């Protein structure tokens, strides 16, 4: 009797265990055969070398002349590329401003926008900013086509000035120099390319006054990155230029975010081949991970960038704070700089005190693609930290995802009476950088924007957010579950309004559960003991 029961038990136990083992091994076995959908689509997109070039500009006759000005170069380009200048002048890369959703307010450096770096462009009267404008001479004259389309950097302004000075000189040495200069100009003009990373980076890597100051995920380390820094732009790998994702339509370049998201919809190119390539989904689809993994369930709430960019500023440091209150100190009556640990300036008389950091962990916020920006005309509450630019989004917004950001903190001047941020004029003979008089700089600066100034200023703490979307790390470096789904040191400690397993707990449920388990154990033990000790005389 006993023996038969034992055999029955062991056979069923063995069968059960076998089934369990197969179940455990099953899913992982299947996944190693299939490649993740996202990888498969991405590999198709970069398969083979595509050559879109159909012209060698050195063979174009009209480009073989002696150029004496930038405008002349552009007019020559326009003899074939008839609409280029017209198109470009309608875009934000030329106008530097765009209507905001508030009436009469323009976003953008030439508009009412304010930041906590150099604060304001002062309606482009602050000439210091203009070196990045895509024209030959500030806002006047023609578009400088070569700033984006020139393969070789060339000192045009200096060369044209020298040529003008050498005009009419019959010294044979000078004639030789003039010929060499013209050859140099011609070579630069004929060396034309679709914009490369170094073209865009000339301005976008160095915004805010130097390399890596502003964005955190855009600096000169991306000119020739390796795969560990950015898998898409890896010089020895996919080697994407900026325009691969920041596609253009009539010179309107995708990717601008002020009040509207960069892309209206998240679609992959297999759903719609005319969709914008600016979102990750367009090449990787919305379920890019191995099938049946939990990660595919995250893509509707967590942005790709959150897990795939674990830290930013991984090679060059980025500026994390800028305190204007200390600006203006002089040594022997002259402005001075002080360098810090990372080889970057930590104090400049003209600007104040800075801090820098490398390998920075981002801050995470809900983000639906739009920002809220405070401009020169907006009222602020100086008792709080003013969020000059912050991302918009809520947990119940279907377009919102948890997204990483760089938050730059600062202390900048504001109008104590009108309770608004102010825009001091910085460069030029009357700017703060020459006079070190903040009150005068604010008076002049606010005048450029037609904004009244009460004459009394003080400093307020501000923050400014940049979305982190470049410097995508290889898949093996992406964040693991434990970085967020953990009780105490979660990267998403600041995200409220949702329940995250591992990070959150319901104390009541846990207590009930504990009571149930311990209670069951106690009950079984007591029952068993009870039965043992009260055998009622039955001996077997």
């Amino acid at each position, binding site marked *: 009797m006993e023996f038969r029961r034992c055999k029955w038990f062991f056979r069923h136990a063995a069968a059960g265990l076998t089934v369990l083992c197969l179940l455990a091994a099953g899913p992982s076995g299947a996944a190693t055969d299939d490649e993740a959908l996202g990888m498969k689509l991405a590999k198709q997109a970069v398969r083979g070398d595509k050559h879109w070039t159909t012209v060698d500009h050195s063979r174009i006759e009209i480009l073989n002349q002696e150029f004496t000005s930038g405008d002349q170069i552009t007019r020559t380009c326009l003899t074939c590329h008839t609409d280029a200048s017209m198109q470009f002048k309608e875009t934000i890369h030329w106008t530097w401003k765009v209507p905001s959703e508030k009436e009469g307010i323009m976003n953008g450096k030439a508009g009412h926008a304010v930041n906590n770096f150099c604060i304001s462009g002062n309606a482009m009267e602050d000439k210091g900013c203009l070196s990045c404008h895509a024209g030959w001479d500030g806002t006047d004259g023609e578009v400088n086509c070569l700033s984006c389309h020139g393969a070789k950097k060339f000192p045009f302004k200096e060369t044209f000035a*020298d040529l003008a*000075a050498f005009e009419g000189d019959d010294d044979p040495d*000078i004639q030789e120099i003039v010929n060499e200069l013209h050859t140099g100009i011609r070579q630069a003009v004929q060396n034309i390319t679709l914009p490369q990373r170094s073209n865009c980076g000339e301005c976008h890597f160095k915004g805010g006054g130097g390399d890596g100051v502003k964005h955190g995920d855009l600096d000169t380390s991306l000119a020739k990155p390796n795969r560990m820094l950015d898998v898409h732009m890896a010089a020895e790998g996919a080697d994407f230029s900026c325009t691969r994702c920041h596609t253009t339509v009539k010179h309107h370049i995708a990717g601008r975010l002020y009040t509207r998201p960069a892309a209206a919809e998240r679609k992959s190119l297999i759903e719609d081949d005319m969709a914008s390539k600016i979102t990750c989904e367009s090449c990787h689809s919305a379920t890019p991970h191995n099938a049946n993994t939990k990660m595919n369930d995250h893509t509707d709430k967590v942005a790709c960038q959150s897990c795939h960019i674990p830290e930013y500023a991984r090679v060059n440091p980025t500026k994390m704070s800028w305190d204007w209150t200390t600006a203006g100190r002089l040594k022997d009556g002259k402005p001075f700089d002080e360098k810090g640990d990372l080889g970057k300036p930590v104090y400049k008389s003209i600007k104040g005190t800075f801090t820098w950091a490398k390998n920075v962990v981002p801050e995470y916020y809900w983000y639906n693609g739009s920002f809220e920006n405070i401009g020169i005309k907006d009222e602020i509450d100086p008792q709080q930290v003013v969020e000059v630019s912050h991302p918009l989004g809520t947990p119940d917004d279907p377009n919102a995802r948890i997204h990483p950001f760089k938050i730059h903190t600062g202390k900048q001047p504001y109008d104590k009476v009108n309770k608004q941020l102010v825009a001091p004029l910085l460069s030029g003979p009357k700017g703060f950088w020459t006079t070190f008089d903040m009150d005068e700089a604010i008076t002049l600066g606010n005048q450029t924007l037609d904004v009244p100034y009460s004459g009394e200023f003080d400093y307020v703490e501000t923050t400014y957010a940049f979305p982190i979307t470049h410097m995508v790390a290889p898949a093996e470096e992406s964040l693991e579950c434990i970085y967020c789904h953990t009780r105490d040191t979660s990267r998403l400690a600041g995200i409220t309004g949702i329940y995250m397993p591992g990070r959150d707990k319901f104390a009541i449920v846990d207590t009930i559960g504990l009571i149930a388990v311990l209670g069951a154990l106690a009950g079984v033990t007591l029952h068993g003991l009870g039965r043992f000790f009260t055998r009622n005389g039955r001996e077997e």
Partner: protein
Amino acid sequence: MIKKMLIFFTLTLFTFGPVFAALADDGPDGNHRKGKYTYRKVIQACHETGGVDSPTPTVSPADMTRAEWKQVFENRNFEAFGCQAQWDALSDQDILDIYAYFYEFAKDSPSPATCG
């Protein structure tokens, strides 16, 4: 008579005054624009003979003050640039042009400039 003398004197003053004023300028009398390119050519030639590592200039006018450059060029002390022999072979006018370039953009000039 007095009137004629006065006119003659004024004319002399107005003719020679500006000449003296120009000569009173401290700086060298070279063509600084030409000097910039001559300098680059010398460095290029020097690099080709292995005298310096870089084909483009590493020493800039903004590195030193006008007084310091005056010492360098008046004493023809070109150690900092390398290829002393090639510098010695330059004509006086070339040296003057290069000096004018360094003077124009020295550290204490209104517009200090770096090369490259």
